């Protein structure tokens, strides 16, 4: 593989303004799939959670999951979007082995939510407004496992295994308008946006939005234009960037790569790119010129969706406090700095700390436990705080108990790890 030429970040920014577009797919946490009654539970035997509809068997038909629609509206409302009075699903036609019907039931020119924004807070407290183009409903594909190839990719594989358990799980795709004017802070804005969106999705209770589990996936579209110009440059689409840190690194890498190409008089190829976690680089995927044609047309198997205004208003009234507002409130209540709050957020510790305080601990010790000993522990094990076998109630008890002597600890009965369901909701 040829080494990708990069310009230094500073040099890139000295000549160019980055323009970004972020597309985030969120897998909803509905009990059943978007168009059939199959379970969405993770971890089942391959193809155990399938039926004629999500396998695309001849004759099978979709039926819309109402909770999926409700979740889409909630997300749209929380992103300050307009909610369509009438919208339809559309078929996006393309061939892929893990897509059973060889079309994806999605939305095209009639998304359920459009024209919104999300204010994101950067580490120094600056607020940047990211405009939202649309949020629309669609279905996930199955999963292919390629056997025999060197890289796990289809190229060079002897055969592939297909698992359709994920096929038909509801997805909400949230697309930003072009993010301009972030300048050198563009990668930081990208990361903050995805972080904020993740918090928002969790606060709405519509998905756990775990990036490590693929419940939230981000595509970073990026182009550069010389300072002072208006026309967008040719963009690259870095697909499936699946952690906050990676979002930032991918944006940064692409800025440097584009700048190197443009500075040396080259042209950017419109293509998808793969992101590599190990070295933070991207490599060429498939050429994506404008000839790609999904032949969208209204999905004839589903009737249009016309959410009653009263229902939309009811959902609007029921929206929880937005994460940024809540964080600022908590920051003041806990008396911590912007930066401390940011590390708490990055560690995924906001909710555990809140729950621990609710269970009786004081703010300082709750924070100390989750950000200290427990964060280290989780880090070592490579799990999230929520996956540790300890509950906020346990932490509250520990933090309010004074231990008289070492021996009493040894005599306490061994405790089985708690299951997820025994923990307070997050």
């Amino acid at each position, binding site marked *: 593989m040829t080494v990708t030429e990069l310009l230094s970040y500073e040099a890139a920014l000295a000549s160019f303004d980055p323009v970004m577009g972020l597309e985030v797919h969120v897998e909803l946490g509905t009990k059943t799939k978007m168009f059939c009654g199959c379970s969405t539970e993770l971890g089942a035997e391959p193809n155990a959670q399938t039926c004629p509809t999500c396998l695309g068997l001849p004759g099978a038909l979709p039926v819309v999951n109402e909770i999926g629609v409700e979740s889409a509206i909630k997300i749209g409302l929380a992103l300050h979007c307009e909610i369509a009075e009438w919208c339809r699903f559309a078929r996006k*036609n393309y061939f892929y*082995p893990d897509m059973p*019907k060889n079309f994806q039931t999605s939305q095209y020119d009639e998304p359920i939510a459009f024209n919104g924004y999300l204010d994101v807070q950067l580490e120094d407290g600056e607020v940047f407004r990211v405009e939202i183009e649309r949020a629309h409903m669609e279905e996930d594909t199955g999963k292919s496992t390629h056997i025999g190839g060197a890289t796990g990719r289809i190229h060079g594989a002897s055969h592939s295994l297909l698992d359709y358990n994920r096929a038909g799980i509801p997805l909400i795709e949230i697309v930003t308008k072009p993010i301009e004017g972030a300048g050198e802070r563009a990668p930081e804005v990208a990361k903050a946006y995805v972080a904020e969106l993740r918090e928002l999705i969790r606060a709405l209770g519509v998905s756990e939005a775990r990036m490590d589990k693929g419940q939230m996936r981000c595509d970073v579209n990026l182009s550069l234009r010389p300072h002072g110009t208006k026309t967008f440059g040719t963009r690259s689409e870095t697909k499936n960037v699946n952690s906050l840190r990676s979002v930032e690194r991918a944006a940064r890498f692409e800025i440097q790569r584009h700048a190197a190409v443009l500075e040396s008089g080259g042209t950017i190829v419109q293509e998808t790119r793969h992101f590599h976690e190990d070295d933070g680089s991207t490599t060429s995927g498939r050429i994506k010129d404008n000839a790609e044609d999904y*032949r969208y047309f209204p999905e*004839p198997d*589903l*009737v249009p969706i016309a959410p009653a205004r009263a229902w939309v208003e009811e959902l609007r009234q029921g929206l929880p406090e937005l994460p940024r507002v809540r964080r600022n409130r908590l920051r003041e209540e806990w008396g911590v700095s912007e930066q401390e709050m940011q590390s708490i957020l990055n560690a995924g510790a906001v909710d555990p700390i809140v729950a621990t305080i609710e269970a009786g601990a004081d703010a300082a010790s709750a924070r100390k436990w989750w950000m200290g000993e427990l964060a280290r522990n989780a880090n070592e094990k490579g799990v999230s705080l929520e996956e540790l076998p300890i509950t906020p109630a346990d932490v509250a008890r520990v933090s309010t108990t004074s231990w008289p002597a070492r021996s009493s600890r040894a005599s306490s009965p061994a405790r089985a790890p708690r299951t997820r369901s025994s923990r307070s909701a997050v």
Partner: protein
Amino acid sequence: MTDIIKLTAAEIAAKIASGELTAVEVTEAHLARIDAVDEKVHAFLHVDREGALAQARAVDEKRARGEKLGPLAGVPLALKDIFTTRGVPTTVGSKMLEGWIPPYDATLVKRLKAADVVILGKTNMDEFAMGSSTENSAYGPTGNPWDLTRIPGGSGGGSSAALAAYQAPLAIGTDTGGSIRQPAAVTGTVGVKPTYGAVSRYGMVAFSSSLDQGGPCARTVLDAALLHEAIAGHDPLDSTSADLPVPPVVEAARNGSVAGMRVGVVKQFRGEGYQAGVMQRFDESVELLKELGAEVVELDCPSFDLALSAYYLIAPSECSSNLARFDGLRYGLRAGDDGTRSAEDVTALTREAGFGPEVKRRIILGTYALSSGYYDAWFGSAQKVRTLITREFEKAFEQVDVIVSPTTPTTAFPIGERADDPMAMYLADLCTIPTNLAGNAAMSLPCGLAPEDGLPVGLQIIAPAMQDDRLYKVGAAVEAAFVEKWGHPLIEEAPSL
């Protein structure tokens, strides 16, 4: 025994209920008839002998236990091979699905079973319901029992031929552009395309989702109504199925009348391409309607002239997407998978081998019509025509209760005559297509034999959406008047096989 096969469904059900016949006897009589004539007719792709007899035995046991039997209990039926049947092959007339055994029953099949209807087997059809002659079946053509060298209509030619050949008193068809009505017309039988959404499409292999509609086929209007009632009704598994009560079709069929009704005759449904004998029988039918007390109103529906063009954009567009799933990966045919080829190559080889020429033609046409840059001109314009046609129907139904027309411009043409001329083939659906585009209901019933060739002519009755009962009210009146005039049902003039 031979008389059993000549009975109507209503008569069979009554005789089984009274104990005069057993369901097993009835089923055996029809299976014997299939054995005797289907080599010539080729109406069936698969005969489910065991399944049919098991269903029949269950009906007889039910009766023995003193349980109440439904209005079609024990009546045999021929099912178009487009509906999925759990454990029974479903080919849709295509090599693509040769040997495929569906793991689930279509909703319509579940309803038939719940009504104790005995499913004899699956009938031949144009591949993926694309055609008007059943010649596009990958499994060979079906003969018209009136003249085995002629087509039985299509795509549901197997179902119409099975009725005309007395292989079954009831059949199921599907109608996307006329595939129930045109076969009924050319075989002297009765076929109904219910209002779009009246009969669940779940488990009906899709050709063009916004046009496809399953419906009843029979030799009499009352039998069609009994079957209509058994299969219609809301299905939560089909979002496009109407959540409304089924219109009182059986009651209408038992009380046929056109007295005081306003009947529309559309100017556009005549002219070049219409066989003289077909128009003669049609005009006589209009006269008959007047004699029966109907008022005839001439209607002008100019956009109907665009229906065929719009149809041949919308149906292929939807089919190009619906048939994309046939890729050889999950079910059905897989060609060329020798371990060296990529999935894409195997898919291409599978489609090359599995789809017939007409299916390929429509997939290519539809893919083109949906392409970026062409969408507005083709698919978009066709949708506008569809809206115009729907509005013209609505306007027409402000003036009339039903519309009548010839079902198809000609009688059954010889097998092979139009096989290489798709445009000529498409014209067979000239009068039936507007109804599919608008989504309303229509029936075809026999109105005589064309003088020049002695072959059956169909009269089409069109009703507004969700007023399917009007078809039966008018159809029953016309049928009764004709039977009185002829002295017997038209089908009795069919040559014995």
